[in-house]
């Protein structure tokens, strides 16, 4: 209990090297990964029959469209710091039902109503998350149960059909690509523009990075988060409308695995789940990358299991790299 007698007892002598670490070029792990993936994909792609064809490129884009649109919306929400929504697929399903059941009012009215419905359902969650600081995961799990349960209750589980097939125009192709692909591109560009060039977009980054600081600075935290969720709702609604048109009918399980697929795409796009960093265009890239790999495996005849496994590993690797990159230089 004592530090012994008189002379040198608790002596501290510390010296640290004088020069700070050289701040030269450092490889960006995410960039390196992308390079590695692309380099690794090239020989596989070249040796895979019918992979490098225009038709296949089209198919990959078409397969990306539905999940991609929702993922772009989810990017904004994740950037604004509210992590993820567990209710995306239920919301898309409800929107699809609304869209088909209102077809008799005319395509544009149906479109308007269903988009509003998606925005309203999702924005309400966003407002609660933004203003009340509710935990987004708990809230959206609750919302998922509520939406799914109510949809089953009200529809009685029956399939919803359209009275009119005007919606078929949404299934048409332009220059060989389905309309949904163009919509995906537009949505991604708009989202990127909103994030980079508008006040609410910039504020999403700020709120997501440090909500406490944003609040103390008097930024409209609740409103910003609400806007992000409303945009997300719009994206889910667009996905729902396309799902409805593509399937021509809607059932309670129409949304399928949309929720997790969208989250995977956002994560592979390098958006940080803690908020404050990310990009809609990179999410688009992430969604395409997942599709490319799934397509490659499909064409090479790998099982569904292998496709899912590779997707999971890809998400894991990107998550780790994104994290390493974000903490480079500090900590």
């Amino acid at each position, binding site marked *: 209990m004592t530090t012994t007698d008189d002379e040198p007892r608790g002596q501290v002598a510390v010296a640290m090297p004088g020069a700070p670490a050289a701040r030269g070029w450092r490889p960006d792990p995410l960039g390196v990964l992308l390079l590695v993936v692309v380099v690794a994909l090239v020989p596989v792609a070249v040796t895979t029959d019918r992979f490098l064809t225009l038709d296949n490129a089209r*198919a990959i884009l078409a397969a990306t469209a539905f999940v991609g649109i929702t993922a772009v919306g989810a990017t904004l929400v994740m950037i604004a710091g509210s992590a993820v929504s567990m209710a995306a697929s239920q919301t898309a399903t409800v929107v699809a039902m609304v869209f088909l059941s209102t077809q008799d009012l005319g395509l544009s009215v149906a479109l308007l109503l269903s988009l509003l419905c998606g925005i309203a359902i999702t924005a309400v969650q966003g407002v609660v998350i933004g203003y009340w600081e509710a935990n987004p995961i708990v809230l959206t799990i609750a919302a998922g149960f509520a939406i799914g349960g109510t949809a089953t209750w009200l529809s009685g589980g029956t399939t919803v059909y359209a009275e009119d097939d005007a919606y078929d125009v949404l299934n048409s192709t332009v220059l060989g690509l389905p309309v949904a692909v163009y919509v995906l591109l537009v949505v991604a560009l708009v989202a990127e523009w909103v994030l980079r060039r508008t006040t609410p977009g910039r504020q999403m980054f700020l709120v997501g990075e440090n909500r406490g600081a944003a609040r103390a600075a008097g930024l409209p935290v609740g409103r910003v988060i609400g806007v992000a969720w409303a945009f997300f709702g719009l994206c889910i609604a667009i996905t729902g409308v396309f799902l409805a048109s593509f399937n021509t009918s809607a059932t309670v399980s129409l949304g*399928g*695995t949309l929720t997790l697929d969208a989250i995977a795409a956002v994560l592979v796009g390098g958006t940080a789940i803690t908020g404050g960093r990310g990009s809609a265009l990179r999410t688009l890239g992430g969604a395409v990358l997942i599709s490319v790999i799934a397509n490659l495996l499909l064409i090479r005849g790998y099982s569904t299991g292998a496709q899912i496994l590779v997707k999971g590993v890809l998400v894991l690797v990107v998550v780790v790299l994104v994290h390493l990159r974000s903490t480079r230089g500090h900590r």
Partner: protein
Amino acid sequence: ACGGSDGSGKASGGDGSGPEGKTIAFVGYGNESPWGAAYNKTFTAALKDSGVKINDLTSMDAGTQIQNFNQAVSQKPDLIVALVLDTQAAVVPIQKAKQAGVPVLLVDGRPDPSVEKDVMAVVSDNPKLGEYAAQNIIEGLKAQGRDSGNVIVLMGTKSMLVTQDRMEGFDKVMATAPEYKVIEEQDTNWDPTLSGKVAQQLFAKHGCDGVQAAYGMADYMALPIVQAAKQAGCKVGGDDGLVVTGGNCFKAGIDSIRAGELYGTATEDPITIAKQSADYIERYFSGKNPPQSELVPEERVTAANLDELADQCSQA
């Protein structure tokens, strides 16, 4: 008007006192499934006037269903009517029901072979449905005058007996026309969105000229194939377009056949089987000793007989 029964035995039990006052534990599919919803509605309505009390234990979650099945056994109803999601998991509850002396009527999917003898069954003729799909494809391709062709198949959840039975029937008939080759079989999990996605990629992989026919195991899986083909720029139907066939006929499928896109489908509509199972129950309770296992007659649906079956198929 019942289909072939195996005649291996008569359903014993049923005291012949009629359905009045009897209790049924109904462990069916939940209303989340449109097929289930239509079945549940028709089935309940059909038994309404008979005085049978139906205890609703339906669920679309496989685990909950098994638990509900056990619950049903403990309540010792006069009959358990079950449409099970996980055939294998239902084996133990069925054995328990047998021990407890509660009769079980299995509807839709056939029981696991190990308990085949322990239950009554009103089952869809799944092998037949697969055969019909193959017949549609062969007929369609022949009509186009093709002497060769590639076929893709998008199945329902592979782990289910329903899927396996249909594939068996399908493969059997396809074997009779070796000039047509099945080049892809993908499990798309009864998921319309996934079917569409996989179809898109298969068309890209093989090109429009690499696929002549497609089988989507249910109409809601076949229609996304049609959409995917159209979006890939492939011709659907007509003299030289893709021949697509479905199953579990739905209204959307009928409409599509009318539009000349879907070549054909087959029944297994929930209405027919609901009515037949309700009828079976009335016979059972009235002591008419229905056969232990009944098959629901299935119909092939094409443009030729569309009008006769449109009504039956348009309920879900």
